[in-house]
C-alpha cells in the first residue's frame, strides 16, 4: 500500500515538474492555478505513504535508500508548501519540484526489504540523527534555491525586464526566505551531527572521524556556518551568497551520495 500512495503522489508531483519547466518561461495560467492543489495533494498522499511505512516497520528511521529518498523528498515538499503558505509564491517550485519528483520517482519504482540490517537504526539517537540531518538538507536546499532566484530577480531588476520582475517575488522576500531557511536548517544540522557522533563514538570509537562521509558532512556544516557568518557580519547576499550556497549545496550532494564510500554509514555488514 505505501508504494501505491507514493506512486499516485508521483503523478501529482508531475504537475509540479511541468510547472518548473513552463511556469516561469511564459504565461501559464492553468498550470499556475493547478500547481498548488496538485502538489499539496501529492504531499498528503506522500505523508500517508510515510506513515504506513513507519507502521509497517515499527520505527521511523528510513531503512532503505528508497525510504530515505522518500523522506527527504517529503521534507522538501513540506518546506515548499510552508513557504507558499507564508509568502504566496510558487517560484521556489522551479527548483524544488524537479528534485522532489526525481527522489519520489526513484523511491516509488520499487522498494526492497530493509537493507540496513544494523540494529543501530532502531535506537533513538539514530532516529534523531537521520531526521534532523534530513531536515537540515531540505532547508539547505531551499536556501540554495533562494539564492539562485535572488540572482535571477536581481538580474531582472537591473536589466529592467518587466517580464522576469513580475513573475518572481520581491527581492527582500526571496532574501528573507533564504535567510530563514538557513536559520531553521542550521540548528537541525548541528544537533543532527552531534547525535550522529554520539552514536558513532560509542560504536566505533574516535576513528569514525576519518570516514569520508563524516569529513564531507563537517565541511558542509562549516559552509553553513560561513554562510550565516557572512550574512550576519557583512550582509552578503546576491552573487557572493549564491556562490557560497551553491558550493554548500554541492558538498551536501556529495555527502548524501557518500554512503557508498563510507564505512560508518554502511549498515549492511555491521
Amino acid at each position: 500500500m505505501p508504494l501505491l500512495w507514493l506512486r499516485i503522489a508521483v503523478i501529482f508531483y508531475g504537475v509540479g515538474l511541468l510547472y518548473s519547466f513552463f511556469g516561469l518561461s511564459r504565461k501559464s495560467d492553468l498550470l499556475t492555478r493547478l500547481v498548488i492543489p496538485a502538489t499539496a495533494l501529492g504531499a498528503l498522499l506522500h505523508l500517508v505513504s510515510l506513515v504506513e511505512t513507519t507502521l509497517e516497520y515499527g520505527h521511523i528511521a528510513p531503512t532503505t535508500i528508497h525510504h530515505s529518498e522518500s523522506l527527504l523528498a517529503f521534507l522538501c515538499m513540506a518546506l515548499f508548501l510552508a513557504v507558499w503558505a507564508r509568502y504566496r509564491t510558487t517560484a521556489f517550485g522551479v527548483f524544488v519540484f524537479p528534485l522532489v519528483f526525481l527522489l519520489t520517482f526513484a523511491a516509488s519504482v520499487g522498494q526492497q526489504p530493509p537493507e540496513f540490517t544494523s540494529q543501530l537504526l532502531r535506537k533513538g539517537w539514530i532516529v534523531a540523527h537521520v531526521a534532523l540531518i534530513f531536515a537540515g538538507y531540505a532547508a539547505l536546499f531551499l536556501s540554495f534555491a533562494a539564492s539562485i532566484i535572488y540572482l535571477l530577480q536581481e538580474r531582472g531588476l537591473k536589466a529592467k525586464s518587466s517580464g522576469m520582475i513580475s513573475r518572481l517575488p520581491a527581492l527582500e522576500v526571496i532574501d528573507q526566505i533564504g535567510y530563514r531557511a538557513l536559520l531553521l536548517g542550521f540548528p537541525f544540522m548541528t544537533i543532527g551531527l552531534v547525535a550522529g557522533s554520539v552514536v558513532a563514538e560509542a560504536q566505533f570509537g574516535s576513528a569514525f572521524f576519518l570516514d569520508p562521509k563524516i569529513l564531507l558532512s563537517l565541511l558542509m556544516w562549516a559552509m553553513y556556518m560561513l554562510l550565516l557568518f557572512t550574512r550576519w557580519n557583512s550582509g552578503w547576499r546576491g552573487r557572493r551568497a549564491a556562490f557560497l550556497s551553491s558550493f554548500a549545496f554541492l558538498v551536501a550532494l556529495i555527502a548524501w551520495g557518500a554512503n557508498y564510500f563510507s564505512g560508518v554509514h554502511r549498515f549492511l555488514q555491521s
Partner: protein
Amino acid sequence: MRLSLLGVNHRTAPVEIRERFAIPESRLAEATERLAHFPGVDEGMIVSTCNRVELLVSSVNGRTDLRRFLCDYFKTDVSPYEQHLYEFQEREAVRHLFRVAASLDSMIVGEPQILGQVKEAFAVARGVGAVRSNLNAVVTKAFAVAKRVRHETQVGSSSVSVASVAVELAKKIFGSLEGKHVFLVGAGKMSELAARHLLAHGAGSIFVANRTHDRAVEMARRFEGEAIRFDQLYETADRADIVISSTGAPHAIFRREHGLQFLQRRKNRPMFFIDIAVPRDVDPEMNKVDGIFVYDIDDLQSVVASHLTDRKGEAEHAERIIETEVDKCLARFSEQEIVPTIVSLQEQIETIRQAEIDRARGRLGAMTPEQELAVEGLTKAIVNKILHTPITTLKSAARESESTTLEETIRRLFNLKSDTHKKDPPE
C-alpha cells in the same frame, strides 16, 4: 423591455461639449428622478463623470426620445451637438454599458475609478426609485462582468504612471515599503509626487536635501520629514532605502564609488535610486554595483509604455469576454420574457385536455385502470406533439429578439389571458 442609451464621452466630444451636459453630483438624484418620469421611460439611470455623460433607460412600449430629455433638462437645442452624441438600443446598449463598467471605454483603459462611478450612479438611481427589476438585472450583470474582466485579464493590473511604476518597482525590491526611508534629493514637483505615492504605500520617514536649504526645510515640513544639508548628502544618503533624485546639477552627483560606500555602510542592504533629473543625477555605472538598482526617467517611462501595450492585448481578451456575456445576458432576458406565454399556453391546453377526458368518462362510464392509462397516454401524446413546434419556435424567436409579434399571435390564436407579467410590480 427595451433598453436605450444616449451619451457623450471623451472620444466623441471635447471637454467644452462634455461639460455642457455634465450633471454635478448634487443634482444627480433630481435629474435621475426626472429621467425616470419622462414620457415613455420606465426605469432610468444617469452616469456623469468628467469623461462621459450617459443616460440609460428601459421603456415598455416603443422608443423613448432621449434627445428630448436633454433638450428639456438643459433647456437647450441639442441638434448642434448631434455629431457628438451616440445612441444605442438593446444589444448595443447592453454592450456599451458592460464596456463602460469594465473600463474598456475609458481614456486610460483599465483605470479602476469608472466602476465605482457607475456604482454610485446606480445607487443614486435606486435611491430615488428610478431603477427597479429590469435595469437592476442589467446593471448588476454589468458589475459582475466588470469583475470577471478584472479577474480574468490583466487589463487593470499594471501601473501606467511614472510615480506608480516607481512604487511598483520599489515593492519588487523591498517587498513591503513599511518602514522604508525615502530621500528626496532636489525638491521638485515630480519627486514630491513620487514621494507621496511611496508614503501612501506605507513608506516610513522622508529626508529632503536641496541646494537651497530653505526649500528643503519647507518640503520636509510638508512631509513631516527631516531636512538634510546638501553638503551632508553623502554622509546621510545610506540611511535611505529609496533615493529620488531630481536636481538641476549638470553632472552626476551619485557615482559608482558613492554607491560602494553606501552599501558598505548599509551592510549590503539594497538601495533603489530613482533618477528623474535630466541631465541625470545618478551615473549609470551605479546600476552595476551589486545591490543598487538605478532607474532613470527613460526606464520608468518605458515600463509605463510596455504596460500600456500589455493593456491593449488584454483589452482584446476583455472584449471577447464582454461579447459572450452580452449574448448570455440577452438570451436570458428574452427567454425570461417568453416563459409566461409558454406556461399559460401549456396550462390552457392542459385544461382543455382534462375537461375532454372528464366528458369522455361521463359518456363511457367507468374504465379499467389499463383503459385509464391508455386514454391518459394518448391524449398527452397528442397535446405534446401539437405543442412541440410552437414552443420551440417561441423559444428560438425569443433568442433572436423578434418574439413580440409571434408571442402576440400565439396569445391570440390560443385565446390566452392578457399579458400580465410585464406590468410593474406595485411600488
